[in-house]
């Protein structure tokens, strides 16, 4: 029985790590610009396919649809991660310039539609380039099950968790300990005052979108060996991650990470009870949390002056 609970913990943390990473990426743009990228799901799918493409091009092993296990070996997977991060970061900047900045600071929610539209364009382009069929991606550390006190886990799941935790810890340090982090927090707090203090507000906002999009792309690359890469894979992950972010408090990065992990653990835990009730239980719980704490568990209480 203990092994069963341990398995739930391991499985929940593995998928929760991805949710947390994407939830954090939502938080980064929200705290700096008060906007969100609703194309984050598509960014995940594009990141995964871009990763497969890089592995295929540099390794030349197997076919594009079924890469040989060796294709992800050596320095190829980190290289793929670097390329995906850079390209998706650039896409994030493009997204900010094309779909966010024209509408920022103006009344209405045009940026919601424009980011959704950007995602649809990106997905359609992806379909034209890669086609809609899912593609297998090998894991850099092989596929053999590892045993932890009776619970089984695959190397990729540990990698997902480890990379997510390292990235999140690094970003936490960046936000709290560096001048850049201070600048980002200042922009989040009050862009006008931050600009008066000599902070390049536009650059900080651009950087936030680049970072957020790069995280989504790397998230896609991390999940692909577990779920196989697909342009449609990101929607479900982004929705769960967004729910986790809302539950934890969108304006609190640590809260978002907590929310992501909590959601992953809840999924695995509820499945142990009645799997078909999983989504119902999770979303009822989120509604309940928001009813009691409208800004999420760790969100700052915002007062809108009317």
């Amino acid at each position, binding site marked *: 029985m203990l*092994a*069963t609970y341990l*398995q*739930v913990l391991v*499985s929940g943390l*593995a*998928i929760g790590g991805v949710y947390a990473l994407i939830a954090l990426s939502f938080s980064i743009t929200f705290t700096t610009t008060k906007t969100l990228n609703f194309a984050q799901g598509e960014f995940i799918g594009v990141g995964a396919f871009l990763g497969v493409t890089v592995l295929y091009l540099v390794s030349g092993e197997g076919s594009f649809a*079924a890469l040989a296990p060796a294709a992800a070996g050596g320095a190829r997977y980190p290289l793929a991660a670097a390329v995906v991060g850079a390209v998706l970061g650039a896409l994030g900047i493009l997204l900010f310039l094309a779909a966010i900045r024209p509408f920022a600071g103006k009344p209405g929610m045009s940026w919601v539609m424009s980011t959704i539209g950007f995602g649809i364009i990106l997905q359609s382009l992806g379909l034209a380039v890669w*086609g*809609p*069929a*899912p593609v*297998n991606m090998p894991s850099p550390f092989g*596929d053999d*099950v590892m045993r932890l006190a009776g*619970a*089984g*886990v*695959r190397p990729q799941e540990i990698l997902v968790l480890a990379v997510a935790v390292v990235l999140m810890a690094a970003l936490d340090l960046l936000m709290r300990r560096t001048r850049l982090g201070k600048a980002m927090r200042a922009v989040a707090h009050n862009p006008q005052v931050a600009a008066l203090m000599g902070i390049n507000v536009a650059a900080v906002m651009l950087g936030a979108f680049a970072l957020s999009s790069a995280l989504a792309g790397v998230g896609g690359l991390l999940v692909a060996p*577990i*779920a*196989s890469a697909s342009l*449609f*894979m990101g929607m*479900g992950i982004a929705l769960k991650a967004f729910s986790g972010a809302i539950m934890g408090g969108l304006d609190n990065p640590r809260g978002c990470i907590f929310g992501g992990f909590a959601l992953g653990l809840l999924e*695995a*835990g509820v*499945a*142990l009870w009645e*799997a*078909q009730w*999983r989504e119902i239980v999770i979303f009822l719980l989120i509604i309940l949390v928001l009813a009691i704490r409208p800004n999420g568990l760790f969100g700052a209480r915002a007062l809108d002056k009317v």
Partner: protein
Amino acid sequence: MPSISDDITRRGFGRGTLAALLAAPAIARAQPREEIRLGFNGDLAASPSAQSGRAAVVGIRAAIEDLNREGGVLGRAFSLIVRDDLSQPPKSIQNMSDLIDNERVVAVLGPTNSGNALAWRHIPNQKRVPVMGCIGSATDITRPIRAGADNYMFRVGSVDRTQVIALMAYAKKNPRSGRIGFLTETTGYGQAGLRDLQEVAQAQGLTAAANERFNVNDTDMTSQLAKLRTAGVETALVWAQGTPIGQLMRSMDKIGYFPTVLTSWAADNLSFINAAGPTLAERPIFLRTVSEDRTPRQQAFFDRIRPQLDADSAYSFAVHGYDGTMLLARAMQQAGNTEGPAVRAALEDLQGRLDGYAKTYERPFTRDQHEALTAADQRWTCWRGGRLAAFDDAVVAGLRPEDFRG
């Protein structure tokens, strides 16, 4: 200087039009007669089963090639109009109306995903256009809309109910079966299969000790499997598509729990072995309609179309597509026209023998029976060394016709 168009007077234009109208029937007679248009509506790219849809289209095209080489039917050649539904029910419904109303097809083959057939089967029944299923295997697809109503849904393909009956008979006959449990996907395909599993288990006097569900995109089913293990399940009957069955095998590997696995035939899909890997893929036992031990005639057809298939395992769908198209053509020949009601009536009372690639058809359909392939046409299959292979053991050898109840 006047241009040429200025020379055309209104009277002259009128005369020309009149002459053209008079000549029109003569022109129509002189040209070859209009083609018989068949439609295909199904997923060719999006879902884990898309490979099967593409294979069916290969089979249909091969049949049309053979038919046209013989001069077609009723002096008319066949043509195929293909619509991809991306496995989405709304798109599939839209395709169905488009094929029937705009493209004027006389019959439709497909779809790939059972749920889509269930979403639109009222349309061909209302518009009285025969549909020949060749991939989707849900039992309800060929059920009439109302008892006694004319039914335009036919099938040359596998049927969930037939598979469930045979798998359940195996579970009942196997002395090592122990307790049985159900694992199903939450899609229309999985849940229709679950209903079949429950009904057939009852008919054969078996009770499931556990009944768990998972989402089609789930990558970790360890929680559900832990419940089966706690319930003491030693034989799991699984109804899902290829990829999730593969993920299920991976989850079994994670917790080191390996009951006997009897699955839907979706395990023959390349998506299954891609997800499961070649070693874990050898565990499930499932049923197909075309044996891996091919007859020389089946082998010749296999060699002919193999270059166009994604995988060896997709061959059976090409066979269904081929045989289904041939049966439609034979029915049109017998009816003497391509009108829906006449073709339906001819299909339900097809004369003579037709040598198909799945089997030889003799009066394959009746008014109440719209399945061309039955329990006797099921072939036990598994994966061995990365390839599909015929499965045989003492239990399979001991199965008798009276064991197939439900």
